[in-house]
C-alpha cells in the first residue's frame, strides 16, 4: 500500500459538510426507524437499560419492604416470587449484558477512529430484537402473566406439571430474544475490533477497553448458544412433550443446570470484563499516566475469559456430583482470583505512581475497588466446594453477587457514564451532584448489602418471601432495606444530574478530561460520521504522544465508506462500503418477534413464522453495487 501526500481535495469545512450530508439520516420518524448510526442505536439501548434498571430497582425496593420485618404482607408469596424472578431476569438479561454491549456499540467505532461499525444494520437489528425481548417480559408483567420461577427456571418446577400456563414459556422466549440480540451485537464487536482498527493500532497498541470488549464479545459468542439451547429444550419439553428433563423417561434434570451454568457463569464475566475496560480508561486518564502492566492486564483479561468457561459447576456443588470433580472446580474457581488480583494491583499501582485527580469518574473507581474486592473475596469463600454447602442459596450469596455485579459492573458503568457523558452530549455533568450521588449510592449499597453476608451466616435462605420472627433476622433486614432505599435515592440524583446537565452543564469541548484515546479527538458530541479523516496511531496513548495526531485521507466523502485493516498489524487493506439506513432490520426484527412469541403457543409458529423472516432478510441483503470508484488512500499531514 502506498500513501500519497495530501493533494487537491475539498477544504476542511466543505469536506465536513459533505461527509455530514453523506452520513445523515432521513429526518423525522422515518430516520428514527431506519437509522444505522451506532451512536443513535447505542443511545437507545442505554436509555432502555436505564429505564429497566429503574423498574427492576423498584421491584428490589418492593422486595426489601416485604422483608424489612418478619411476616409482612406487602407482597404475597406470588407477588414476591414474581418480583424476584422479574428483578433477576431483567437485571441480568435486559440490563447488564445489553448495557455493556451498548457501551461498546457507542464507543468502539469512536475509539477506532472509524465512521461506523462493521455491520451497521446488524446493530439496528440487535436493538429492535432486544426491544422485542423487553416487551415480551414486561408486557407480560403488565398483563399479570409474569414469570415466577426465578431467573434460572430449573425443571421440573418449570415443567408443565408444576407450572401450567405460559409464565415459564414467556421467560424462556425472552431469553431467546435477548440472546439473539446479544449474539448480533457481539459478532459486530468482534469484526469491528479485529478488522477496522486505524492504521498503526496494532494489537499491541490496542487500548484495554477494546481488548475487554473483544474478549467479552467472544465469550458471548461461545456462551450464549448454551442457554438458547437449554431454554429451547425447556420450551420443547413444555410444548411438544419431549423428555429432555424428565428423569422417569430417560431425561436428566441436571442437564438443564449444566447447560444453564455453562452460560450463566461466563455471563457474569461478560458483564465484568467490559467494566475492566471502563475502569482502566478512567484510571489512566485521572492518574495522568498509562496503565501499569498493560501486557499483564491484557493477559489477565484473556485468562479470565478462558477460565470462566471452566467453573460452572461451582453453582452446583450441592446437587450431589462426585467430590473429586467438585475439587477440580474449586481449584479452577479460586484460580480466577489470580488474574483478578493482578488487575486490582495494576489499577492501584497506576494511581500510586500517577497524579490522581478526584473528579466523579475517578470516585467511581474508588467505590468499585472497595466494593468489588469484597465481592471477589466472598466469591473465593463460596468457590470452596465444602464451604459452599453452607453458603449457597443463602443471603451470603445474595450479598456476594450483588457486590460483584453492582460493585464490579454497575459502579464502573456509572463511572463510565460520567466519564464519556461530555463526549456524548457536549456538556459536563455537575461535580457537586456527582459527589452526592456517589456517596449515597456507594454508602447505601454497602449499608444495604453488607448485612446480608451476616444474614446468610445466620441461616437465612434466598428466595423466601417472609421469615419467622423467632429467627431474629429482622434487625439486619431492616438495615438492608434502609440501605437499599438510600442507594435508590442516590440513583435518582444521578439520573436527575444527567438529565439536567443536558441544559445546565458547562460546555465540554472535545477533550475535557485530557484523555489518551481516539474518541477524544472527535468533537463533542461527535458528528454522525465521527471523524473527517481517519487518525493514524503511533502509540498506545495517541493523544498523549509528543507528535500531533496524523490523519489518513482517502476514505470516501460522498459515499458511506469505512476503512478495513489487517488483523494483527492494522495495515490499511481496503475501503468497505458501509450500509445505508434501512427499514429492513426493524421489519426483520418484527418478523422474528412474531415467530418467537407465536412459538410460546404453538409449534407451528416456527414453520409459518419463518416465511416472513426469510422475506425480510432477503430484502435486507438485496445485492447492491459493492465497488468504490474514489481514489487511493493518502496520508494527510
Amino acid at each position: 500500500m502506498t500513501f500519497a501526500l495530501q493533494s487537491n481535495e475539498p477544504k476542511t469545512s466543505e469536506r465536513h459538510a459533505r461527509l455530514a450530508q453523506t452520513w445523515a439520516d432521513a429526518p423525522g420518524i422515518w430516520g428514527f426507524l431506519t437509522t444505522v448510526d451506532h451512536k443513535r442505536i447505542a443511545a437507545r439501548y442505554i436509555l432502555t437499560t436505564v429505564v429497566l434498571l429503574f423498574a427492576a430497582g423498584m421491584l428490589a425496593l418492593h422486595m426489601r419492604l416485604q422483608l424489612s420485618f418478619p411476616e409482612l404482607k406487602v407482597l404475597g408469596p406470588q407477588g414476591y416470587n414474581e418480583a424476584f424472578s422479574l428483578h433477576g431476569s431483567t437485571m441480568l438479561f435486559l440490563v447488564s449484558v445489553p448495557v455493556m454491549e451498548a457501551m461498546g456499540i457507542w464507543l468502539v467505532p469512536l475509539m477506532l477512529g472509524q465512521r461506523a461499525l462493521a455491520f451497521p444494520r446488524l446493530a439496528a437489528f440487535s436493538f429492535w430484537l432486544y426491544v422485542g425481548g423487553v416487551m415480551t417480559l414486561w408486557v407480560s408483567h403488565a398483563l399479570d402473566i409474569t414469570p415466577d420461577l426465578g431467573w434460572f427456571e430449573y425443571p421440573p418446577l418449570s415443567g408443565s406439571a408444576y407450572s401450567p400456563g405460559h409464565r415459564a414459556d414467556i421467560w424462556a422466549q425472552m431469553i431467546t430474544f435477548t440472546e439473539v440480540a446479544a449474539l448480533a451485537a457481539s459478532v459486530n464487536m468482534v469484526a469491528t475490533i479485529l478488522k477496522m482498527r486505524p492504521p498503526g493500532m496494532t494489537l499491541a497498541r490496542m487500548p484495554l477497553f477494546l481488548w475487554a470488549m473483544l474478549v467479552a464479545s467472544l465469550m458471548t459468542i461461545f456462551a450464549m448458544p448454551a442457554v438458547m439451547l437449554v431454554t429451547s429444550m425447556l420450551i420443547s419439553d413444555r410444548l411438544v412433550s419431549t423428555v429432555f428433563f424428565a428423569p422417569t423417561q430417560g431425561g436428566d434434570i441436571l442437564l438443564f443446570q449444566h447447560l444453564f451454568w455453562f452460560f450463566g457463569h461466563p455471563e457474569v464475566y461478560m458483564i465484568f470484563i467490559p467494566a475492566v475496560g471502563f475502569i482502566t480508561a478512567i484510571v489512566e486518564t485521572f492518574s495522568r499516566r498509562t496503565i501499569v502492566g498493560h501486557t499483564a492486564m491484557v493477559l489477565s483479561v484473556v485468562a479470565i475469559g478462558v477460565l470462566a468457561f471452566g467453573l460452572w459447576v461451582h453453582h452446583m456443588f450441592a446437587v450431589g456430583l462426585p467430590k473429586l470433580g467438585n475439587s477440580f472446580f474449586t481449584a479452577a474457581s479460586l484460580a480466577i482470583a489470580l488474574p483478578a488480583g493482578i488487575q486490582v494491583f495494576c489499577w492501584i499501582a497506576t494511581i500510586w505512581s500517577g497524579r490522581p485527580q478526584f473528579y466523579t469518574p475517578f470516585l467511581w473507581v474508588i467505590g468499585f475497588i472497595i466494593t468489588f474486592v469484597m465481592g471477589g473475596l466472598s466469591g473465593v469463600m463460596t468457590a470452596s466446594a465444602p464451604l459452599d454447602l453452607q453458603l449457597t442459596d443463602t443471603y451470603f450469596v445474595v450479598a456476594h453477587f450483588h457486590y460483584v455485579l453492582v460493585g464490579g459492573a454497575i459502579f464502573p458503568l456509572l463511572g463510565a457514564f460520567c466519564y464519556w457523558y461530555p463526549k456524548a452530549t457536549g456538556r459536563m455533568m455537575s461535580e457537586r451532584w456527582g459527589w452526592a450521588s456517589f456517596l449515597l449510592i456507594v454508602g447505601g449499597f454497602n449499608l444495604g448489602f453488607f448485612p446480608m453476608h451476616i444474614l446468610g451466616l445466620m441461616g437465612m435462605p434466598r428466595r423466601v418471601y417472609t421469615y419467622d420472627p423467632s429467627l431474629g433476622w429482622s434487625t439486619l433486614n431492616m438495615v438492608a432495606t434502609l440501605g437499599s432505599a438510600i442507594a435508590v435515592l442516590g440513583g435518582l440524583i444521578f439520573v436527575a444530574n444527567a438529565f439536567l446537565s443536558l441544559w445546565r452543564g458547562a460546555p465540554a469541548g472535545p477533550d475535557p478530561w485530557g484523555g489518551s484515546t481516539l474518541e477524544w479527538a472527535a468533537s463533542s458530541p461527535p458528528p454522525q460520521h465521527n471523524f473527517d479523516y481517519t487518525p493514524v496511531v503511533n502509540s498506545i496513548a495517541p493523544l498523549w504522544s509528543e507528535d500531533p495526531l496524523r490523519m489518513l485521507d482517502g476514505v470516501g466523502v460522498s459515499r458511506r465508506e469505512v476503512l478495513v485493516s489487517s488483523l494483527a498489524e492494522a495495515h490499511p487493506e481496503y475501503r468497505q462500503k458501509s450500509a445505508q439506513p434501512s427499514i429492513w432490520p426493524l421489519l426483520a426484527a418484527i418478523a422474528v418477534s412474531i415467530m418467537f412469541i407465536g412459538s410460546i403457543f404453538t409449534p407451528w409458529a416456527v414453520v409459518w413464522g419463518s416465511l416472513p423472516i426469510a422475506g425480510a432478510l432477503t430484502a435486507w441483503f438485496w445485492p447492491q453495487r459493492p465497488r468504490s470508484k474514489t481514489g487511493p488512500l493518502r496520508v494527510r499531514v
Partner: protein
Amino acid sequence: MRRMVSRAVWPAVLLPLPLLCGCSSTQSPLFPAGQQAANLYDLLLLMSMVCGTIYVLVLGFLVLSLVRKRRASVAPNTVVAPPDKGLRHVLVVWSGFIIAALSVLVLGSFLADRGLARMQDAEVLDVRVNGHQWWWRIAYREPGGTSWIETANELHLPIDRTTRIQLVSGDVIHSFWVPNLAGKTDVVPGRNNSLDLTPRKTGWFRGQCAEYCGLQHAHMALDVKVDTAGEFAAWIARQKETAHPPTGDAVASRGLALIETGTCGLCHTIRGTAAQGRAGPDLTHIASRHSLAAGSLPMSRGALQGWIAQPQAVKPGTLMPFIPLEPADLNAIAHYLEQRQ
C-alpha cells in the same frame, strides 16, 4: 475433642456481630452442633481470616496510593511517565502471595471435603427424607426390622452417632439444610443423594428448604431434635405405636370418625385407623411435634384448629385444601388430633 477446643478460641472472630443483632442460634452455620458443621466452621474461619487479610492489604494499598500524591498536583492535562520497574517487582511478589494464599485455601477446602466424606461410624442409622411441595416426609427404618416408621417435618437424631439421610424428592428440586449440623444437599428427582449427620450437642435446631421450590418455599422448614441415646430409643418406640381408638371420649371418637369418613383421610394416614391417604403428612403422632405445617406455626390446640379451618390463610397456596366444616366438627377433629401424642 480437638475441634471443640479450636472453636472455643475463635468465636470472638465471627460471633459478636450476629449476637449483637439478636439473631437466634438454632439455624446457623456459626453455631455448629455436629461434626460436619464443625469441620465447615473451621474452614469458614480459615477462609475469613485469609480473605480478611487480603482485603485489608488491598484497601491499605489503595488508601496510601490516594493520599501520597495529594500535594504533588500537576497542571491539568499534563501526563506523567514514571519508571515502573519497582512496581513490576511488587506485582510479582503480589502474584506469589495470591498463589500461596489460594494454595492454602484449596488445600483447606480439599481436606474439609475429605472430612465430610469420611465415614464417621461403621454402622449408621438409616433415615429417608422425602421432599414435597412444601413439607418433609421422614421415615426411620425400624430397629432390627425391615419396615419404615413414618413421620413428618420433625427429625430426631441420636447424639454422637452417625445418621445417613437418604434424600428423595416427591416432585421438584428441594434442598435439605440443617446448618447447625451440616451443609445443604439438594433433593433432586431421579437422583439418590445422601448426607451424613453426626450431632455432637443435644437440643432443638431448625432446618429449611434451601432450593426454590415454588410458591411456599419460604414455609418449608423442619425441626431437628438431637436426643441422648435413651431419649431417642424412647421416641422411636413411641413413634412406632399405632393409634388406639379413643375410649370414653365421645368428642374424640366423633373426630376420628370424621377424619376416616370425611376428606382428611384421603390424604393423611393415621396408623391404626381407616385413614390411609399418602398425599399429605402422617398424622399418627402429630401432637407430639414441635410445630405445624412445616414450621409455619408452633404446635398448639389453637394452631391445629386454625390450620384445619383456614389452611390457605396460614400458608397461601398450600396443597392442603380448604374444607368447609361445621364448628362442632372442626372442634372434634382438633380435639382428636390434639391427643395424638
